[in-house]
């Protein structure tokens, strides 16, 4: 992708005016998407994105310049634009490159770029047929298949020169149920860092279609969720979005290094209930949020964030590491070359505990059982988070009464992780796209079933 001697020339030019660190990120990605609606394949789109970014640091200041022109001239032009933004600094030497190929081809059996689009379309049709067959109330199903193969090269003035290949596949089914007056929707969207063999093991398109339809039909017949403050039980898998929003973002250097986060300066303190251990792991083979090296060229690792309630680690990128005076944790990620990297989550989950799931509901009194969560968001400065409950059930006297629609959960991160009073045994991961300062990236969220002793439930 890039000759080492050209890389060296570009880094030398980029740091010529005094920068003390320089980096080149080069990317070539091929993607294919297939969309089906109303039972017909509507669009098949193939796209190649290609570009590079040159980044330099002067102390805690960062300059980033990017382009599609990855020729020697294009990269040198980027280097010159970056250097022009700097005047003075201690400069740096360019360390000899240690060339590393981090990709592990043995993890991928069937590269999606070598599979015909017609074979991919079959998977889409299977999901659609299953969604429609579920009920006469299903009036629409939309199925999206997406794959991408991303080749990256990252090199820097510290001697890093590393290539990686990331392969992603995801199937997303959205079903709409209607009684003519009202619409409700349901979805299922599994994916992984795998080749097309993912359909032999992890993704069953018919099961996805059926699941999306079941949710939509269930919600069509559900009354609206009552509003108020109640205990809430959140099921495993995508339920982990609560930790991702309520706490995870506030442990990223992006907010910690600037002192914005409510968890800034609190290492070693008990920030969560003792039953909570939380982990961010970029190394799980074939997972949606895994990479072999991060987008700054560092090997990824398994990082314990909270150990039995105690805050033990933040997620730190290179720039954050300078501000915080702590080593980076392989957490630098970005959507593409069009974004400078920053600290981001990978596969983030609450570890399995010891509580019995059935007892958790039986002993909760009146409240909400959130079976499937939707997405959410957080303001790390204030810790206020919100997220949607896609499928919820109302519980009274410890018994599940009926489904409820339109529920949302709100609160403050530091409160909610203190109020977790039960952690179940069966931890599952689920796939999501996370949007933040370096764009939209694949992440896993996860947890076993947990209970929060009291939470504001938004409804009507």
């Amino acid at each position, binding site marked *: 992708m890039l000759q080492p001697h050209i890389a060296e020339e570009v880094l030398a030019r980029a740091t010529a005016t005094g920068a003390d660190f320089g980096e080149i990120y080069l990317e070539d990605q091929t993607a294919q*998407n*297939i*969309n089906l*609606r109303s039972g*017909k*394949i*509507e*669009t*098949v*789109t*193939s*796209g*190649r*994105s*290609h*570009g590079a970014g040159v980044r330099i640091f002067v102390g*805690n*200041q*960062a*300059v*980033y*310049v*990017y*382009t*599609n022109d990855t020729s020697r001239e294009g990269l040198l032009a980027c280097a010159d634009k*970056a250097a022009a*933004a700097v005047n003075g600094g201690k400069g740096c030497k360019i360390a000899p490159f240690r060339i590393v190929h981090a990709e592990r081809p043995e993890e991928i059996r069937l590269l999606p770029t070598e599979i015909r*689009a*017609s074979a991919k379309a079959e998977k889409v049709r299977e999901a659609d047929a299953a969604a429609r067959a579920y009920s006469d109330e299903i009036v*629409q199903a939309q199925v999206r298949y997406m794959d991408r193969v991303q080749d990256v090269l990252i090199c820097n003035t510290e001697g890093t020169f590393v290539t990686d290949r990331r392969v992603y596949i995801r199937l997303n089914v959205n079903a*709409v149920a209607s009684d003519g007056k009202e*619409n*409700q*929707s349901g979805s299922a969207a599994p994916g992984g860092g795998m080749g097309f063999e993912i359909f032999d093991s992890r993704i069953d398109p018919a099961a996805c279609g059926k699941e999306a339809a079941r949710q939509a039909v269930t919600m069509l017949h559900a009354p609206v969720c009552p*509003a108020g403050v109640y205990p809430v039980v959140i099921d495993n898998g995508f339920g982990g979005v609560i930790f991702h929003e309520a706490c995870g973002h506030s442990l990223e250097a992006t907010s910690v290094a600037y002192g*914005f986060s*409510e968890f800034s300066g609190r290492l070693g303190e008990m920030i969560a209930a003792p039953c909570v251990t939380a982990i961010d792991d970029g190394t799980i083979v074939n997972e949606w949020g895994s990479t072999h090296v991060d987008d700054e060229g560092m090997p990824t690792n398994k990082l314990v964030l909270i150990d039995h309630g105690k805050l033990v680690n933040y997620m730190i990128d290179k720039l954050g590491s300078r501000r915080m005076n702590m080593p980076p944790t392989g957490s630098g990620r970005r959507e593409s070359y*069009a974004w*400078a990297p920053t600290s981001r989550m990978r596969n983030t989950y609450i570890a399995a505990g010891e509580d019995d799931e059935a007892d958790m509901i039986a002993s909760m009194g009146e409240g909400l059982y959130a079976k499937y969560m*939707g*997405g*959410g*968001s957080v*303001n790390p*400065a*204030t810790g*206020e*988070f*919100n*997220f*949607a409950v896609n499928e919820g059930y109302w519980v009274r006297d410890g018994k599940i009464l009926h489904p409820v629609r*339109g*529920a*949302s959960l*709100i609160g403050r991160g530091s409160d909610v992780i203190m109020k977790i009073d039960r952690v179940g045994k069966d931890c599952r991961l689920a796939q999501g796209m996370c949007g933040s300062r370096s764009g939209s990236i694949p992440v896993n969220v996860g947890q076993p079933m947990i209970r929060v002793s009291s939470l*504001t*439930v*938004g*409804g*009507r």
Partner: protein
Amino acid sequence: MEMKEFMDTLLDAAKNGGIETAEIYYSDEDSFSAKAHNGVIDSYEVSATCSLSLRGSVNGRMGYASTEAFDTEAIAYLVEAVKESAALNEAEEQDEIYAGDENYPEIEEENDDLDEVTAAEKLAIALRAEEAARTADQRIPQTEGATVSTQKGQVILRNSYGLNLHRTRKLYAAYVIPIARDGDSTATGFKLEYGRKLRGLDPVKLGKDAAADAVSKLHAEPVASGEYRIIFRHDAMQSLLQTFCGIFSAENAQQKMSLLAGREGEEIASPLITITDDPLRKGGLATAAFDGEGSATRTKAVVEKGVLKTLLHNRRTAKKQGVRTTGNASRAGGMHVSPSNFYIEPGEQSLEELLKNAGSGLLITDLSGLHAGANPISGDFSLLSKGFVIRDGAQAEPVERITVAGNIYQLLKSVRAVGSDLEFPGSPIGSPSVDAGMMPVSGK
């Protein structure tokens, strides 16, 4: 290869490769962005990027592909990918490449100064705005930064019928995010300005306005759960309209994803509501003479005094319904529909008058988590909200950690008053403040 030569070669290669009609949509952008934080520029970004997509019809079926690499490989890749894509396309209504209109509207543009303003000036503006925010009030110890960005770009649409359309775009945006703290209360503020004349921006005012916004939200508390008279300030109403504008898409309606299907001519909103889609609006962020498939654009009422006049169409959805395209084709993978400058027409009353008439209730100023807490298919929403108590007909203490729940279809009908304060907060979608009547609130 020069871009014009690349396009010529690509159209030839498409024809020779068996693509009957083909169209290129090309866009490029040069951008600059700098962020000031704690009195220094801590982030500086410059980019020059372009991308090109090809769509083409083979046996009457449309295929799509795109690239950001412009080598000879890219030509073969695009042509083969379009053919593979077309072969799988089974949609009953197919898009067609359009030969173009006789005339396109003239777009009146404000002069700009963005080619003259130097990088050093932009940095100075960011630094001044950040300092103004940081020093505006003792309760502002820091900011998340002040950002100044500029963009300059163009779009070229060329097809095998010889249609060759072109437009340019220039814009600056500047915003500040201060953090206010007092005791154990923390609040963030926000203020954005954008336009084409950066030298006309007052950075000190920008910083101070952002600081005032942050400070006004300190010590916010939830209110008790219950029904409240809700006034959505223009910015909160704008975010609802932006989230739910897809209900006006004929594409969604034809796919049973909008409950407005077939309801043209019916009263779907309060008589106080008129919604306009105006692609010719001067200074609008979506102002353009042609849409994503080369149709001339035009201004139209979507809702007039509560009556649905038209949904938004591209050529495919219009043909299916036997009407004329509204010039709202947009490209995102395939050919879809999206609004241009789309807004609720302002009424007569100021926000103060709306508050006075309501007497008591809640003024909602911020809605969060719209991507998750609002369902564009059912129209239901339950959203984390911030704002102020309305007491004795005026804005009183701040409120946070509450949710406001409702349904967009019902809300449009229950509107009691529309304010005069139409704004477009960094978006082509705009709204004035709206008195929505009684709505359920979940709080403490």
